[in-house]
């Protein structure tokens, strides 16, 4: 502790800045490590689902595979296509990773462990993640390639459509918590009864809509028409190579972890323990995030890709009506004595 105050004095007036940077690094570094090992987990899990072994050559049982991948991508050349807009071409990956990392500023890991405990944190996450689509659109346009452009158009329409259903699903969470603050949203799910007081039971339709929209938002299978290999090669990032491609990859997986974390916080009780009597804590949150991420991988290994008109139909004609109806149901239910949560 003494050392701590000494360091603080040594930095003087810039200490708050330095301390914030230290906290940011403490969030981003484990996140990037998690991203690296999520790619490994994905290849292993899908491998086992398809009765293969997955990567097992680099390091013991393949555990160094993500490091090898990162080294390979870092040393590859970034090819810039002729006729492309160089500035925007290089800006696009940055624009897609920035929101994926910036949203973590308000994510609570514990009742007290949060970088910025702001009142409107839920709105902040929504606003920041809605900016992620620019990376995809600009990548598609700046590449000066028809495949990339088609992919970016598909992705833009899809993300805008599913954001609406996602937003409505969040309104249900707000009605439960009376707050936009993520810490309060988790606290409201605490009742001493464990699992049954979590939001996913009264808000079950919204939980499903949020989870599936989350898969669509992150452009994951079965909603990955933006990169549909069979028709438009790799979609918006077809012209990217080396580190620029890797940054898109990082952004996709960081977004997956973000959506899984938001699902865990809003519907699965965050750091609360499912069984009364067992203490709450960060390991529970980690477990829930891992569970939702496993669902993401499981979906990818199980379902064939949706056709584009089916995606649009699901978003507009199924999810939005479902959430609207459930908003009215839950609003009415809350006014009756039959309301069990609270």
């Amino acid at each position: 502790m003494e050392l701590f105050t000494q360091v603080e004095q040594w930095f003087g007036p810039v200490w708050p800045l330095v301390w914030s940077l230290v906290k940011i690094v403490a969030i981003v570094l484990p996140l990037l490590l998690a991203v690296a090992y999520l790619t490994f987990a994905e290849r292993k899990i899908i491998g086992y689902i398809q009765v293969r072994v997955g990567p097992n050559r680099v390091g013991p049982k393949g555990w160094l595979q993500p490091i090898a991948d990162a080294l390979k991508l870092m040393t590859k050349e970034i090819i810039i296509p002729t006729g492309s807009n160089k500035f925007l071409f290089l800006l696009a990956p940055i624009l897609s990773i920035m929101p994926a990392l910036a949203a973590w500023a308000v994510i609570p890991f514990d009742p007290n462990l949060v970088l910025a405990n702001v009142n409107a944190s839920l709105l902040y996450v929504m606003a920041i993640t809605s900016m992620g689509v620019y990376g995809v659109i600009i990548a598609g346009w700046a590449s000066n390639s028809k495949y990339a452009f088609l992919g970016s158009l598909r992705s833009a329409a899809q993300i805008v459509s599913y954001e609406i259903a996602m937003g409505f699903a969040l309104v249900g969470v707000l009605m439960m918590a009376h707050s936009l603050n993520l810490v309060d949203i988790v606290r409201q799910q605490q009742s001493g009864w464990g699992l049954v007081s979590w939001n996913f039971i009264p808000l079950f339709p919204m939980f499903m809509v949020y989870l599936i929209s989350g898969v669509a938002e992150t452009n994951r299978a079965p909603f990955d028409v933006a990169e549909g290999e069979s028709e438009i090669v790799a979609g918006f990032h077809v012209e990217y190579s080396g580190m620029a491609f890797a940054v898109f990859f990082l952004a996709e997986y960081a977004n997956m972890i973000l959506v899984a974390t938001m699902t865990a916080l809003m519907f699965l009780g965050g750091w609360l323990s499912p069984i009364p009597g067992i203490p709450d804590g960060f390991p529970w949150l980690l477990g829930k995030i891992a569970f939702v991420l496993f669902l993401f991988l499981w979906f990818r290994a199980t379902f064939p890709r949706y056709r584009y008109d089916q995606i649009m139909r699901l978003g507009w004609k199924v999810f939005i009506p479902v959430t609207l109806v459930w908003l009215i149901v839950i609003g009415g239910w809350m006014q009756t004595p039959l309301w069990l949560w609270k």
Partner: protein
Amino acid sequence: MSFQTAVFYAFSLILVLAALRVITARNPVHAALFLVLAFVTAAGIWMLLEAEFLAITLVLVYVGAVMVLFLFVVMMLDINLDRLKEGYWDYLVPAGVVAVVMLGEMAAVLVGKQLGAEAMPAPSPKPETYSNTKELGKLIYTEYVYPFEIAAVILLVAIVAAIALTLRRRKDTKYVDPAAQVLVRRSDRLRIVSMPAEVAAPAAPPEKAAP
């Protein structure tokens, strides 16, 4: 100069430059992207005024949705830059009049006694528990509920009208009905016939030698 003032001037500079580039950029996609930058910077300035709900909503609605669709359209247009400049001198006079009127209005707001900077002091810092969103919601749904609902209905009518005006049903488009697809049972499509084997399978032909 306090830190906040410095941030305000930095944001204002970016905002003005971005807004200028919106109208001077030759490429319409660049212009749209500068408009996005202008929105984000404006949100930053609102954040300085402690209007966090408005700032975040500006980003969520305009940057996250409206401008995405805008870009979507602008990217697909094949715009001839020379033809855009054609009517420049004809439009200059009416545009100049509009610009002067707008400048006058802004000056009235900024310089005038009733609405000037003195009449609108900076908001006093609120305690940490103060929720901007909650206060705004209370006002909208109690005091201003009728204007708010009327605005909402007008927007709804506009949406319906826009769709009704642009929706054209093509006769040769093939539609599928997902409800009918889901209701299909195996028995509708497939008939399994039981056929007893009557003739014993013939013996395999003798294998030919490889050529």
